[in-house]
């Protein structure tokens, strides 16, 4: 099956710092999404981004489908950004409903 690798596995920041999270995937995908899992376990969809660039406030994401990677940028981080960030993909030509998740990046933002 498709492999999804996220880096770094852990990241500790001071409030106000910027960060870049990376997601590499092993095959062509027709869907890529970024999620944030808060400390209470709730998964929140951040971006649907199979290709191109999107921005939402302090967050932005870029996917280069031909090179099989995606980046999530967090600027001016806040303590509420803490949690686990997951990248999830769907294989091209496969189902359009079965997401494969990476292991996530655990982000801790200290005040």
């Amino acid at each position: 099956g498709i492999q999804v690798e996220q880096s770094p596995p852990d990241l500790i920041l001071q409030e106000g710092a910027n960060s870049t999270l990376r997601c590499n995937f092993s095959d062509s995908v027709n869907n890529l999404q970024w999620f944030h899992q808060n400390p209470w376990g709730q998964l929140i969809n951040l971006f649907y981004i199979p290709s191109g660039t999107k921005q939402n406030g302090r967050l932005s994401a870029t996917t280069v489908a031909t090179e099989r990677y995606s980046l999530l940028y967090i600027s001016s981080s806040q303590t509420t950004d803490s949690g686990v960030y997951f990248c999830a993909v769907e294989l091209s030509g496969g189902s359009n409903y079965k997401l494969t998740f990476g292991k996530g990046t655990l982000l801790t933002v200290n005040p």
Partner: protein
Amino acid sequence: GAGVSQTPSNKVTEKGKYVELRCDPISGHTALYWYRQSLGQGPEFLIYFQGTGAADDSGLPNDRFFAVRPEGSVSTLKIQRTERGDSAVYLCASSLNGGHSGNTIYFGEGSWLTVV
């Protein structure tokens, strides 16, 4: 409802017992998904419903696991003869239509199952 609701939020059960986990999706969402998340891992797909039917149950780990959605709304995940390895967070999600592409998927807060 406002979001995807899952009950119970926490369940501790003895090995060998039967467990039911309930999911109430967002009103009007035809697609419903169950995922399982173990400690330190990302969620893993279990089953997908489109309406009342299980369109894909290929992620269910074995025949002790079963899920239903009899009226196309609420779904129940049923686990028979629980084992310690079943301990995990069981996540339910829904989306307006079938398929993730372009559809925002909304997750519940999960049911934390511990088998002792």
